[in-house]
């Protein structure tokens, strides 16, 4: 944390002056700014509003500190109360779902993936906030729109995404005969095989890991032209393309470190940091931790996007963090004002820097944030929004796609085949059957 602060200061000296002003704003300055913002904001918080906000528990401490600073300034400037509660990744969705079902307890949730789509009828229309931010911050990326909009209406604001990119050890890759990270499927597969031969194996989660497992198996499916659903949300998973993806992933799995079928979201972090795993797909959190606790690994590791698909296009599934406001809240204006305030450059820039690359933006203007260039190892995470697809792939994101990802339909299909429990045809047929029920 201390290291990080000096880094940030030194890089800001040469960086954009506006950003420097924002990042170094003291709490009083931030309060003054927040007051001025409240004067001109299109949303006027209800007097004495009390909001319960549930968010995912931080992975990077500095991010949480920066977020609470934003909350604090907003509370004081608008004379409202925001109760922030934190839940671990796996617990946010059940709690948010219960609140949606009972119509009480929470006013807004900052959740994961496609949360607003799981109960879109309970979400406040956030189109005005999205338009305001889009106009101010260079517009939304396509993936941002896909993550936030349902039938032309914004049901949530995609605040950021954690990119699931390849984390690899440079020396191990070079020893496997690759000067730079392979950009095509064949090269990637060869790399994984060669690394295993050298005793420096790769490994990606194939257990019920909501973030890590879903991410890379969807990439593998899409890269081979396979899809769970087509653009009309018809289930098309049982296809020759899917079969190819299954064979490809089996080839990788056979060269993985043992045990990936049982991995959850933290398993690969632990193994990588312990020096037992040399390539995986993850957010930047491994690197952030390594910089603090294991500088040799941090020095020797780098990040890259997963290789392009057979059609040359890279499609990845990243872990989005959308914020939503329930339609039963008594304070919709306060919730909207807070959402807009949080994503304003003056708050968002320091916050995204504090996250140290763990969170990537969906608003185009934030490409200019110095965090993405100060350390070249974080640069791949800048373009997360550019390669991001929603869990629906080419289909339309909605309740059903959200349910399919929560039920691990695609993960189980790959795991069933890779672990030898089912053959290609049965694995595809099982997934098809589950998917057809969800997308009926």
């Amino acid at each position: 944390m201390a290291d990080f602060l000096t880094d940030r200061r030194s890089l800001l000296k040469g960086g954009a002056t506006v950003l420097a002003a924002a990042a170094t704003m003291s709490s009083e300055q931030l309060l003054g700014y927040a007051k001025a913002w409240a004067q001109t904001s299109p949303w006027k918080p209800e007097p004495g509003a009390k909001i319960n906000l549930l968010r995912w528990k931080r992975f990077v401490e500095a991010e949480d500190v920066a977020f609470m600073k934003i909350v604090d300034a907003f509370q004081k400037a608008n004379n409202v109360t925001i109760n922030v509660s934190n839940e671990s990744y796996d617990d946010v969705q059940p709690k948010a779902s219960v609140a949606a079902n009972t119509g009480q307890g929470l006013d807004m949730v900052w959740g994961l993936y496609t949360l607003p789509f799981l109960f879109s009828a309970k979400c406040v229309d956030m189109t005005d906030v999205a338009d305001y931010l889009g106009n101010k911050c260079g517009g939304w990326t396509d993936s941002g729109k896909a993550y936030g909009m349902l039938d032309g209406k914004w049901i949530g604001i995609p605040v950021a995404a954690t990119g699931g990119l390849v984390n690899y050890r440079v020396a191990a890759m070079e020893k496997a005969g690759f000067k730079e990270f392979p950009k095509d499927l064949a090269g990637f597969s060869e790399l994984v095989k060669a690394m295993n031969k050298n005793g420096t194996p790769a490994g990606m989660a194939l257990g019920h890991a909501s973030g890590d497992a879903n991410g890379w198996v969807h990439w593998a499916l899409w890269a081979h032209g396979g899809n769970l659903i087509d653009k009309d949300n018809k289930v098309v998973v049982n296809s020759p393309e899917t079969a190819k993806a299954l064979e490809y992933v089996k080839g990788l799995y056979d060269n993985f470190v043992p045990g990936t079928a049982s991995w959850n979201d933290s398993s690969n972090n632990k193994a990588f940091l312990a020096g037992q795993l040399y390539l995986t797909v993850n957010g930047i959190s491994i690197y952030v931790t390594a910089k603090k606790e294991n500088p040799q690994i941090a020095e020797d590791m780098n990040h890259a996007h997963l290789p392009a698909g057979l059609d040359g296009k890279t499609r990845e599934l990243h872990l989005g963090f959308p914020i939503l406001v329930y339609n039963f809240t008594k304070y919709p204006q306060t919730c909207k004002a807070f959402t807009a305030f949080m994503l304003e450059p003056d708050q968002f820039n320091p916050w995204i820097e504090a996250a140290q690359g763990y969170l990537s933006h969906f608003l185009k203007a934030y490409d200019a944030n110095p965090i993405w260039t100060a350390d070249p190892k974080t640069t791949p995470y800048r373009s997360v929004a550019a390669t991001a697809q929603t869990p629906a792939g080419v289909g339309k994101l909605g309740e059903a796609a959200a349910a399919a990802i929560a039920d691990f339909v695609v993960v189980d299909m790959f795991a069933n085949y890779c672990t030898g429990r089912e053959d290609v045809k049965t694995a595809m047929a099982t997934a098809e059957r589950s998917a057809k029920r969800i997308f009926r």
Partner: protein
Amino acid sequence: MSTVQTSLPAGAVASGEPSWWSRLQTNRNFIALWFMLPAAAFLILFLAYPLGLGVWMSFTDEKIGRTGIFVGLENYEWLWDDAIFWLAVFNTLLYTIVASAIKFAIGLYLALLLNRRMPFKAIIRAIVLIPFIVPTVLSAIAFWWIYDAQFSIISWSLIKLGIINHNIDFLGDTNWARASVIIANIWRGVPFVAITLLAGLQTVSPSLYEAATLDGATNWQRFRYITYPLLTPIIAVVMTFSVLFTFTDFQLIWALTRGGPVNATHLMATLSYQRGIISGRLGEGAAIATAMIPFLLAAIAISWFGMQRRKWQQGSDQ
């Protein structure tokens, strides 16, 4: 109680001839009904209503955030053809039967040991209870480390001893994973069985053993014809509870495997949660939960009718 008594004479004095109302007021059953009402309201509100709601939900296509419409048996028809559901039923039965049987065997053995006179008896009995006291999630996390694919202490020790040369894939291999979660459940469940059976053992009068010893009964005979018959009612109760707890287990599986690898350890409870809450299909989740009821009723029925049987109660094997 005292209020009832003071109010009774007052009511009797008010009318010369007792009306139906005053008779009702003095009716003990009627008054008892009112005393039971708070408890009944509690049970109806927190047990019967949720249960009824769950069963009703299983006949609808309710999803989180919107109420469902009645679809009859559609959820059950779908589950009937669902391989994962049947796998979960199989896993649940395997988990319950194997874990309960072993828990009973170890629990009874421990109880017999602890019933003997030995030094530090009280401390040892307290220690036996520890696995039961530790919050399930905490012990599950400890087991998760013990079973970790890369950092397992068991694999590490065996490798250092030169017995194996690579890590055991405890939670990644289907059979290993099932064995691992069953062992974790046994570790947790044994104290409950042991301590309850120990309490039962202490009610057996020592004079019976003395008499048997005088008649020249062997150790086995004393167990078979004194301890076991007198312990039977307690065993029935303990095993009913043990089976119910094991059948409905959730935390341990959820913390250890999330039902993986490839659903090999999914129990009905975890599958119900995954489909109902995580995936948002409340109707289907409720149907899976409702499907547990017949199994649970069967378990209760066996021990209930068993306890009704005088022969069994008295331990006669005739």
